[in-house]
Structure formats: structure tokens, C-alpha cells
């Protein structure tokens, strides 16, 4: 099954030259794919377009074999695909770890009891139970990154979009994150400047060159 199909996507921020000028990609179930390219080349924008957080000026967004154009079309997409943001501080918007992880399940209609059971399961799976009642703003950079992944995994997504997940991680935390990601069955679309991390997690690579994706 094709999870994400982006066809000839064009996009420009207001008053700026276009960053995407016909970018296309396909992500299949279980596939792990990485995107590389210079800073500002539109890698993060592409991930945001896949989730409907940005709208392309032209091109087609087809997710789970359905065309997605309007805001309402993306509600299902955001339930089934998890995006891990570049800056964890952008992603953790609840005061405590447990509340942040529970946000997604509660939004999916789970009861508070069910949501807290999911929190326990995800934190247990990631061996992060010691962080459950911590304030999100007091976590270290590495802890924040692992918790952002937990917040997304709590929604049991079918694919993960990872935007520079190793930013500001020390080698130990990077290795731990890699071990966790390698154990996941989900399809992964990875944006990362780290060559060893890409090689280990998603060696299949597309590069953004002049606003288009080129297989490498």
C-alpha cells in the first residue's frame, strides 16, 4: 500500500522564491526513506505538506490512496501518520510528560483511563517510565526528543515522519533513539543531516535539488 504519494509539489513562502518546484515522492508501507538537501531547501516543508500543515501551490497530495486537498481531508491523515518535529519544544505543549503523551489518545476518543494505560505502555516500551510525571520544560534535550517520539507512538501511527530527530542529541541518546526506531514496524520518512544515522535507519535516499527530489 502506498502511504504517501506526493506528485509534482510546488510551494513558495510569501515573498520568497519557490522552495519546491515539482517534488515527487512515494512512501510504501514498511518502507524507510530519507530525504537530504541543503538548509532551507524545503525538506521540512515537504513533511508539513504531507500532513496538510502547509498547502502546495500546485501538485497532488495523495495519502492512503485518497486525494487530500481540504483541511478536513487531513484529519484522518494526522491520526494515522505521526510527525516528530525538528524542535522538541514546539511539539511538547502540555505541562507534564504523561499529559503530553495522553493528548493524542484522548483526541482519538479514548477515555482518560484508556489514555493513561497507553501512556504507561508507550513509556514502558521505550524504557522511559521514570519521566512520566516530569515537567516537559525541565527535561534534557535527549529526554525531550525521546518523549516527542513517545507522544507520536501513543497514537499508533502507520508511518512516522522524522524531522532532524538527532538534532542536539549526544552520541548515547542518538544510539538509543536509533535502537528504538529500528525496532519499530512503521514506515519512516526521515529528514536528517547525519550520514551515519541515515545509513543505519533509512539508507534509501532522495535528495532535494533545485526544488525537486532526485534518487541517490
Amino acid at each position: 500500500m502506498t502511504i504517501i504519494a506526493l506528485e509534482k509539489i510546488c510551494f513558495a513562502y510569501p515573498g520568497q522564491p519557490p522552495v519546491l518546484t515539482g517534488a515527487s515522492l512515494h512512501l510504501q508501507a514498511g518502507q524507510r526513506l530519507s530525504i537530504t538537501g541543503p538548509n532551507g531547501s524545503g525538506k521540512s516543508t515537504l513533511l508539513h505538506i504531507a500532513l496538510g500543515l502547509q498547502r502546495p501551490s500546485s501538485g497532488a497530495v495523495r495519502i492512503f490512496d485518497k486525494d487530500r486537498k481540504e483541511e478536513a481531508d487531513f484529519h484522518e491523515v494526522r491520526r494515522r501518520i505521526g510527525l516528530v518535529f525538528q524542535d522538541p519544544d514546539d511539539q511538547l505543549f502540555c505541562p507534564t510528560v504523561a499529559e503530553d503523551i495522553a493528548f493524542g489518545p484522548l483526541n482519538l476518543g479514548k477515555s482518560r483511563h484508556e489514555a493513561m494505560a497507553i501512556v504507561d505502555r508507550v513509556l514502558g516500551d521505550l524504557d522511559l517510565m521514570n519521566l512520566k510525571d516530569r515537567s516537559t520544560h525541565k527535561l534534557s534535550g535527549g529526554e525531550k526528543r525521546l518523549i516527542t517520539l513517545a507522544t507520536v507512538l501513543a497514537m499508533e501511527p502507520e508511518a512516522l515522519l522524522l524531522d532532524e530527530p538527532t538534532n542536539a542529541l549526544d552520541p548515547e541518546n542518538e544510539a538509543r533513539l536509533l535502537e528504538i526506531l529500528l525496532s519499530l514496524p512503521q514506515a519512516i520518512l526521515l529528514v536528517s543531516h547525519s550520514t551515519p544515522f541515515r545509513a543505519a535507519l533509512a539508507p534509501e535516499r532522495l535528495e532535494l535539488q533545485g526544488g525537486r527530489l532526485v534518487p541517490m
Partner: protein
Amino acid sequence: MISLTSPLETWAHRVPVGWKLAALSGATLMLFSLQSIILQVAALTLALMLYLSAGSLFARSGLKTLRILWPFFAVIVVWHLIEGTPQKGLMIALRLANTVALANFVTMTSRLSDMIDVAAWLLTPFRHIGLKTRALEIAIALVIRFTPLLGRRGAQLIEAWRARSARHPSWRIALPMTVLALDDADHVAEALKARGGIH
């Protein structure tokens, strides 16, 4: 809501949040009706004893957060000295110290999810007439989450200023601070949408 949560579990954590909020409301009403400085000082002593009853570490942590009130005390006292009403100034400052100290105690000893549950219960009548209250409940969590982050952003800007200037940071950091806050708000809105938004 100056502080987030206590660094340690206390007896007050086991008291239902609804009771604590009701007691806080009652105490606040009473403090505003008291017109005696002596009674306000007595109330402040009781508030201090409340903090100490939860242990010295808790008391230190809680009282440390109340330091943020000093500039407000200074403005109130100076203003009333100029006005020639120092007793009134002292009364207002004591009332402020009492109410904020008690509110901070409740915040420190309550889980946010329990506070939101109480808010959701209080908003039940609005839901009965078809209004969505989830946004308001999330807004409470966002304010508590991002207040320390905004403080950190401000501190980072001041550090960046000091790194390149021997002069004291001025009002000129207000504009970049505002831009950063708006930028953060934008990012958080995207993160909320990415995890299903608010329904």
C-alpha cells in the same frame, strides 16, 4: 500559577483539587473583606505555616517562586507613599502576598489534569448549550506549559545581548521577544494540528 508543580509529594497532593480550589476561593473572598493589617499579617503567617507543613524543601521551593512579587510590592508601596496612604499600600501588598501564596500552594500541590477536570466540570453548563469547552481546557495547559519557556526565551535574548554589548539590556529586546513568542505560538499551533487538533 507562578510555579508548576512541587519538587516532592506532600500531604496536600492527596487533598482533592476541587476542595482546594473551593477553599482558595473562600479564602480569597475572606482576604478581600478583611480590612485590618494585623489580620492580614496573621493570614500571611498562616500561609507560611501551610508551606512549612509540607516540609522545609517544599517551603523553600514555593517561597522562592514568590520572589517574582517583589517588583509589584515595590510599585504598590512607592505609589501609596507618594499618595500619602502608606497603610493602604501595605494592606494591598499583604493581600496580594496572601492570595498569590495560597494560589501558588494549590498549583504546586495539584496535578494539572485534575485542575483541568475541575475546569471541565465547571464549564458543563456551557457544553449543555452547545459550546465547545475543550479549547479553554487546553488553553489552561498551554499557559502553564509555555510561561517558563517564554521566560527562558527572554533569558536567552538577554544573554545574546550581553554577549555582544557591555550595556544593560534595554526595552529593545521587547520586539524580538514578541516575534519569538508569535513564532512559538505558530509552531505550537502546527504541533496541535499534527496530533489531531482540538475538537
